[in-house]
């Protein structure tokens, strides 16, 4: 009997039996919303150019399939394996961030040097830098001997974090830099960093950011985009235009929206970068408040699952990884949707799982895979 019981027990402990269906359904739902929205915002423009109207959708679906495969691979390997290789992964990513700056290897667009181009695909290393940073910080903090990080630990964390942050910042990609900062803060908070250390960190950051402004490290247009939302009257036309069109599209949706493919703003190219950074306007215009609130609810569910997994994790590494992923998703969601709604500055942060973009898709599924992994192996 014991033997039978033991076997039953062992089989119940098998990780595959402990998938998180809510997490999976939520990511799937967000991905589907993304694909529908990408089609709505691009098919007419592509038709007008005489191109295949589903070309963006096809690429996104390809990325989605790749992402699911990646998720499965990540979920099968015990996450503690990543703890061992966190340093290696981190260094490799930093190298990629350096390589992307090398002319002839990295590609340039809109004045930024961000990705590798090969075989019709683009690989954006900064997307993976987020995951690498999460793993690295989680690994470092989980190896502490003390119950809470000492000042020296915090400083070590900061020094390690600043490397990818600076590399991303000079691309320039302020959006991703903000996400990286949020990841560091999120993990430090959950790791139990003392409040006064956090405060000191915040003050230092403020001083550094002010210095960056003073020394003209940040381009004028970036300052304008960042501050435009605070003072719509005095910002440039282009900055205002993006904001205005996005708000119009959202407003036009009303309570129930104009119906799928029925959005005027969406179909007439009035909203710039709509299939990427402004994808939420499609949801807002075509599905209205009801649809937009539903998508927000999906994100809330997703982040709740991440925090829950962080709580359930059997070891600190899992807790920190899940907390890092939760921070990453929350800040991206908040800054992106906030930007569309006019309460956050315009920064190029994609909406996780929804925005068009292969690298972001892969990185997000990687993150989801890590969450699932921690969830599946939560029993000690």
């Amino acid at each position, binding site marked *: 009997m014991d033997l039978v019981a033991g076997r039953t027990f062992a089989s119940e402990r098998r990780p595959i039996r402990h998938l998180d269906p809510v997490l999976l359904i939520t990511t799937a739902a967000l991905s589907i919303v993304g694909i529908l929205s990408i089609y709505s915002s691009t098919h*007419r423009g592509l038709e*007008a150019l005489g191109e295949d109207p589903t070309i963006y959708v096809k690429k996104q679906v390809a990325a989605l399939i790749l992402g699911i495969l990646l998720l499965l691979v990540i979920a099968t390997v015990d996450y503690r394996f990543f703890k061992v290789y966190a340093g290696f992964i981190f260094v490799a990513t930093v190298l990629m961030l350096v390589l992307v700056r090398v002319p002839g290897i990295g590609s340039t667009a809109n004045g930024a040097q961000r990705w590798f181009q090969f075989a019709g695909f683009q690989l954006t290393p900064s997307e993976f830098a987020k995951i690498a940073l999460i793993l690295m910080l989680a690994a470092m903090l989980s190896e502490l001997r003390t*119950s*809470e990080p000492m000042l020296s630990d915090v400083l070590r964390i900061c020094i390690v974090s600043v490397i990818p942050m600076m590399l991303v910042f000079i691309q320039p990609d302020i959006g991703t830099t903000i996400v990286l900062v949020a990841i560091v803060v*999120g993990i430090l*908070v*959950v*790791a*139990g960093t003392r409040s006064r250390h956090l405060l000191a960190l915040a003050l230092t950051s403020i001083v550094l950011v002010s210095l960056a402004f003073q020394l003209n490290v940040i381009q004028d247009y970036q300052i304008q985009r960042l501050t435009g939302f605070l003072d719509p009257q005095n910002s440039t036309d282009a900055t205002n235009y993006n904001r205005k*069109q996005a*708000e*119009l*599209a*959202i*407003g*036009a*949706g*009303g*309570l129930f929206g104009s119906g799928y493919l029925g959005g*005027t*703003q969406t*179909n*007439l*190219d*009035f909203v710039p970068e709509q299939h990427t950074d402004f994808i939420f306007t499609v949801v*807002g215009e075509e599905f*209205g*408040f009801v649809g*937009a*609130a539903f998508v*927000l609810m999906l*994100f*809330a569910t997703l*982040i*709740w699952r991440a*925090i829950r997994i*962080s*709580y359930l994790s059997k070891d*600190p590494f899992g*807790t920190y990884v899940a*907390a890092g992923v*939760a*921070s990453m998703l*929350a800040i991206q*969601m*908040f800054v992106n*949707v*906030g930007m569309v*709604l*006019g*309460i956050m500055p315009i920064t190029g942060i994609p909406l996780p799982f929804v925005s068009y973009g292969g690298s972001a898709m892969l990185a997000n599924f990687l993150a989801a895979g890590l969450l699932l992994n921690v969830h599946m192996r939560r029993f000690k």
Partner: protein
Amino acid sequence: MERSTSRLKVLAILVAFMFAALTTRLWFLQVLAPASARESIDRQSARFVDKDATRGRIYDDRHRPLVLNRISLEVRVTKDQLGDDAEGELLRLSDVLGIPVKEIRRGLDDKDYYDYQSKPVAYDVDKNISFYLSEHEDEFPGVEVVPAAVRDYPNGTMAAHVLGVVGQIGADEIVDKRYKDYGVNDLVGKTGLEKQYERVLVGRKGRQKYLVNSNQEIVRVLGEEPAVPGSNLVLALDLDTQRIAEQALSDGIEHTRTLFDDTQDPPAYLKANSGAVIVMDPTTGGIKALASWPTFDPSWFVRSPSKKQLETLYGEHSGSPMLDRATQLSFAPGSTFKPFIALAAEQHGIANFGSYYSCPPEYVYPGDTTTVFHNWTTANLGTISVDTALKVSCDTVFYQFGADFYDRYNADQLGPDATLLQDSLQQFGFGTATKLDLPLETSGLIPDPTWKEEFAIEHPDVLLPDEQSWLPGDDIQMAIGQGFVTVTPMQLAVAYSAIANGGKLCRPHVVDHFEDPAGDTTHTVSGHCNKRTLPYSQAELDYVMNALTKVTQPGGTASTAFAGFPLSEVPVAGKTGTAQRPPFQDTSWFAAMLPAGNPQYVIVAMVEQGGHGSTSAAPIVRQIIEGLYGIDSGGVVDGGSTD
């Protein structure tokens, strides 16, 4: 790990705040303030292009064209599409068109248009210029020569006052709610039928709605409403009758100016500065002809009239030719009023069609020997019947009737008898507009004690202190169509028509019916001539008609004017009128009903400063009758100087 748990709560609360902020903002944008967003989007994403509707045409009673449309070549410029050297291009265009570049610029910079709209900068362009511009298309990007519809008048100035003119919508009309669906460059009826029937003639503009993208490129046509052409007007007015009436009026005025009238004070050549003629069908209320002199050329309005033309059209020294004397000005009717006075007197027991009345040269109201009322002639015509009094237009007989009406007022100032005369005259339509289908009609005036009281208060310096109340002279003067009473020629035509048709007061109308572009009648304008509204018996009306038949016969006041006219073939019942209007010369009137037994026409002629009724107005009416019946008596006749 406990610390991590509590710190996770912090993270969860932070995230909860994020969602609260986003949801609140989303609610605000989508539910609280979405209407303005939708409006803004519609404005930026939809573009409309109007397609003009063809304006309805105007035909006479036998469907002969009076107003048509023709194509005028217009040069239009689209500011958006001008080449890189816009200034140079406009200078070259100015050279080609012969229009100052400043004027072209002014049109293009008009803030009422969008830059993607084409604006007309020149009208009625020569074909050669049009060819030149099309041949050098590449030198003039954004410039096009387009055919635009404008009004065409195949009969020149004929019936100008009736037809009216169209012009570009004015600033006062743009703000008018009635024109809210008009564009700033649209044409609207300004006067005459064009104004009165604007809504019928204008049709409905077609409209193409385009969806445009953020680059203002047309994405697709959202919808197309085809233009609906305006309805045509088919008039009661007859082109031949109109031509005869206009000819008679201008001939008559020209002839009158050659006459020296020693009965005028001071004796002088008659000025005959203006006149009007109406030919009306008393059985239908249809206006067969309506002429006013001086007249104008409606084709001046096809393009905007020049400053000089505007002075001619509206200047006082040119006699204000835009005014329609038949409906827009009122004058004292003089003796043409007598038939209505006679009927009113008979009805109220003041006169008796079987009795005889004395016709002395003078009349004095009992109790006021200081005021002497003269007959138009110094001869004593003895004791005469009412029909003779009408035939010879004896003023003194009618003075007595007027005095009797005054006595009735005096005896019952607050009762129903106070305004017996006024009430009777108002039944004939005097004092109120006839509601004819032409704009800006005036109502004339039938004075009564209340009116005089108010008038005295408003104009205290006009009337002497002892003249400010209702006096015997007011009724006495009104009995011969003098004093404060004024009527329009149209009112007189309607009132005579009521005698002619057996007591039915018609609503006169120039338009007979509307027809759609296919030629089917869509609406018929009625004169409402089928209701007997006047309280007189057929015998009473026949008596007056019979009396008026004698006016054109030997011994009547129009006998000279109708000398040699075949009255046995076409019996004409008529009445002369001479209204004094110091310091001006007398207003000459003649009203006729013919043929007298069964009238088919009522004709009223009025010549301002034309002397006696027989002098200028009666010969004009005679010439019209001759034209209608094809009688040739060889030009304008002299009518003599009888009332």
